[in-house]
């Protein structure tokens, strides 16, 4: 019988190795799996590369992972969001590398990795500083920049409802990067607000089918 649930949040992050690329879904404070990210910090993997739209808030979640020195590099579109003092301190001290990528280019690079594609030609950033050093090509008279796929060793996803197969739904704008990141990593870890029995989710409304999901931690299910 398939049951992707893990008993504790520590089980959810077990085995994540030093140097991993970790996809952290969320937009600001919405749709981000803070409990799982904090468990990763406690688990202790270091030299992580984090792919996320922002860099965390205050002293919890992603910000805590960064300030505690577990992150070597951040790939993001907008590091400045909310109280991002944790990231700024690490950035100004030269302890963390920043790769700035346009927001839609992050999501499409992830989608390429998920879909097994070798990259794509993108009009975004053509003729700007962010295209420097990248291959460019003119297609039908318009300049495009070649963007490579972006794959995660691990994805940390926040879902609203999950069943034991790992079928997922999301809630409102908390969907954001979650379905894309769920597809783009070797190990996809889900933090769900609610567990439902198999068959309860309307198949017309499943956003992430369980094929993309490896582990499900249900919030509040701690023994």
């Amino acid at each position, binding site marked *: 019988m398939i049951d992707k649930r893990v008993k504790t949040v520590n089980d959810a992050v077990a085995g994540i190795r030093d140097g991993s690329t970790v996809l952290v879904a969320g937009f600001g404070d919405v*749709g981000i799996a803070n409990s799982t990210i904090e468990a990763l910090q406690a688990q202790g993997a270091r030299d992580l590369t984090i792919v996320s739209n922002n860099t965390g808030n205050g002293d919890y979640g992603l910000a805590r992972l960064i300030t505690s020195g577990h992150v070597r590099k951040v790939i993001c579109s907008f590091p400045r969001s909310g109280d991002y003092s944790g990231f700024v301190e690490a950035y100004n001290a030269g302890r963390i590398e920043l790769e700035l990528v346009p*927001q839609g280019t992050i999501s*499409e690079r*992830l989608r390429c990795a998920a879909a097994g594609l070798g990259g794509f030609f993108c009009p975004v950033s053509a003729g700007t500083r962010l295209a420097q050093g990248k291959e460019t090509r003119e297609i039908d008279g318009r300049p495009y920049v070649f963007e490579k796929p972006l794959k995660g060793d691990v994805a940390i996803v926040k879902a609203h409802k999950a069943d034991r197969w790992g079928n997922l739904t999301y809630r409102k704008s908390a969907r954001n990067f979650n379905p*894309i990141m769920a597809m783009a990593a070797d190990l996809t870890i889900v933090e769900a607000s609610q567990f439902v029995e198999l068959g309860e989710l309307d198949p017309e409304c499943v956003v992430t089918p369980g094929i993309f999901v490896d582990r499900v931690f249900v919030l509040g299910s701690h023994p």
Partner: protein
Amino acid sequence: MTVLTRQQMAWRAAQDLLDGNYVNLGIGIPTLAARHIPAGREVIFHSENGVLGMGPAPKPGEEDKDLIDAGKGLCTLVAGGAFVHHADSFVMIRGGHLDVSLMGAFEVSEQGDLANWTTEDPSFPPGVGGAMDLAAGAKQVRVLMEHTSKKGEPRIKRRCSLPLTAPGVVKRIYTNLAVIDVTAEGLIVREMVQGMDLAGLQAVTEPKLQLAADWRTLSPP
């Protein structure tokens, strides 16, 4: 001379948003345009974080922490609205499905080059967000900004001095002094505020301006 307030600038830009348009409003003054849509027009607002059919800020008691806009403030969804994931949200942006991207700017050049993502201030890390996607992808990019910087320097330049967000994309500029179109023949002044003349506007604008034969006074309500 009647210099426009931020609300009046937003009002002017809103007059050009047509019934049925799909529109993304940038952070800052563009956001204010949503409340100035003329009665009877249905304009659908897109937010880059996966909200199509974004409504105004919630009433007290109706806040939902899972429903935010691109600026990470709480928002609402109108009847008929939809949630999508990030890749689909940027398909809408990059694929030319948005009719208008109304954006703030630091500088615009006479060729329509847009600079609105970094001032190169070394005291904080750079951020680009969805600005380059919106600038490169929308059917039409329009800019809403103060005509000059806080120091009184022109923001409409021969060439942008700041790093570009996208080259050659801006089609119309709304400022607190004028409405200016970016065309192959150069910058055409369509409207000026009460008491402004071409010489006065030229004095705060770097590239050469031409006055449209049918130019009008820009007079907000």
